[in-house]
């Protein structure tokens, strides 16, 4: 196991006016990450993703709970953990005025990497991560995507076994995101284990072997993207009828299928959810045909992770990410936080 955490808890004390508030950012997280996995930590802002990750990366102490990270005990040997992990923070890692290569070399040397090795390894990583000619550039002259990749170079410079990435693609344009996904997959091929947080469903879906869904400081679901989708809602089936008057008859047939849920009708459409929609469909179409009903169209949609999230938590992940105030909650809490 690369990460084995049991009962991680983190409580912040925040000052609001005269009183102090206890914010229960993480409330008992158990998680396991195997060697060579890409595991995604999915949840809305303020769910406790970053706090959990910062605990595992030795940046803040857990209020309670234990963890073994990259073979070292988090509480007993934080230095051992630091030696073996790379951490790509949300906030970046280089000073805007600094020369990119200098920052990388200084960072590597803090890990005990000799200067010559650091330069060679850094320049190789610049090539691999698509940063040609950026070695002597000030980091403020790099584009958003390039700066993100520079952060990743910083996180990889000491060749860690385990890499934490906090919202690696937030703020990037779609092309830069897709490009970064490629690079992250490439890291795994080199034998690294990757643990990342995201509030993008497509990112978790496209990139991760396994997903942990976190909400209000607790893990509410875990599994492969496929498992999560199957386990929760089933496929969405939409039947469009040629004759609107037959909607009720079709709805009755659909509802009688084993496992069918959420059957709804519109003027000339019937929608419902059913596990393994693709395999149920032929039989369904046959019985509709036997009744002499004519269909104008059939659609089957695989469930999305948003459906998963909605079922697990009762709210949509998408709603949450679109609200700027919610986006500030977690950072504010952490900035004002005082260790309890």
């Amino acid at each position, binding site marked *: 196991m690369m990460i084995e955490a049991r009962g991680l808890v983190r409580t912040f004390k925040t000052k609001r006016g005269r009183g102090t508030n206890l914010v229960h950012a993480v409330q008992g997280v158990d998680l396991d990450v195997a060697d060579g996995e890409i595991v995604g930590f999915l949840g809305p802002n303020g769910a406790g993703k970053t706090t959990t990750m910062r605990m595992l990366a030795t940046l803040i102490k857990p209020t309670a709970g234990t963890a073994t990270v990259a073979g070292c005990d988090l509480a007993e040997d934080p230095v051992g953990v*630091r030696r073996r992990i790379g951490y790509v923070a949300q906030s970046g*890692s280089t*000073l805007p005025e600094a020369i990119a290569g200098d920052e990388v070399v200084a960072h590597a040397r803090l*890990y005990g990497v000799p200067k010559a090795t650091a330069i060679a390894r850094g320049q190789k990583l610049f090539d691999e991560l698509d940063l040609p000619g950026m070695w002597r550039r000030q980091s403020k002259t790099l584009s958003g995507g390039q700066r993100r990749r520079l952060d990743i170079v*910083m996180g990889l410079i000491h060749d860690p076994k385990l890499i934490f990435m906090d919202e690696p693609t937030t703020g990037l344009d779609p092309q830069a995101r897709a490009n970064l996904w490629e690079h992250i997959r490439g890291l795994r091929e080199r034998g690294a284990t990757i643990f990342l947080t995201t509030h993008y469903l497509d990112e978790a879906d496209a990139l991760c072997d396994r997903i942990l869904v976190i909400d209000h400081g607790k893990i509410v679901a875990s599994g492969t993207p496929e498992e999560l989708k199957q386990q929760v809602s089933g496929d969405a089936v939409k039947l469009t009828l040629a004759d609107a008057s037959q909607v009720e008859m079709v709805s009755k047939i659909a509802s009688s299928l084993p496992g069918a849920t959420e059957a709804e009708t519109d003027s000339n459409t019937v929608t419902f959810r059913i596990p393994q929609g693709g395999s149920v469909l032929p039989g369904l179409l046959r019985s509709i045909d036997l009744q002499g009903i004519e269909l104008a169209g059939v659609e089957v949609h695989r469930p999305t992770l948003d459906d998963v999230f909605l079922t697990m938590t009762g709210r949509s992940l998408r709603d949450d990410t679109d609200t700027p105030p919610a986006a500030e909650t977690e950072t504010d809490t952490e900035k004002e936080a005082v260790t309890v």
Partner: protein
Amino acid sequence: MTVLRETWIVFHRQMTLSLRNPTWSILMLSQPLLYLFLFGPLLKPITGQIAQGNDVNAYQVFIPGLIVQLGMFGAMFVGFALIAEYRAGVIEADRVTPASRIALLAGRVLRDVIVLVVQSLILIALSYPMGLRAPIGGVLLALVIVALLGATFASLSYSVALITKSEDALAPLLNGIAMPLLLSGILLPMSLGPTWLERLSDISPLKHIVEGVRALFRGDISSSTSMWGLFWVLLLTVIGLWSGARTFRKESA
């Protein structure tokens, strides 16, 4: 030793960053000159009063105050740079490395101390042609005091910066501290003022440090005044470095 090596790495990074910034270098070098050439002429008319019967000239009184002030104020505001680094994620990136937390602080403080010593050397070198007379041993010991004072204030400044993490909180705080410190007889001896003000300034360790440096510039190296100055600066340094180190440890688990 690993801590020393790591301190050197942090120092080297900071120094490279500073030296690469031409505005910074020019300001760093010109600041002592401005003090010397703009403040110096003001001293001439009151030389007699300052000397108070001792066989000293105005620069022997004025330059010690200037370098102490340089050590104090130069170092006091370094916390702002730390907040900029914090914003850019550098502090977090530093903390996630296995490097000693003390080294992360010490490397930065060392840069500030070197800058102060260089500034003081420029100041002293330029004052000799203007009439400064001071024994070399006393001057060297005075530089040690300035270096320790700089280390104290730099480390306190970093510590407060790391706790507040905000320029808006740091600025008024530092200004609030700076004002009473000026009342330590740094630029002018407190004996020029009324008795009550002089008594008030007696409680400031900085007054004794300045008096100590003045004694060193007069050549009274083994006098009790210079020994007390040394004592106070050492005490402040221990407090400053201890609290700085404590913050760097605590804030990073």
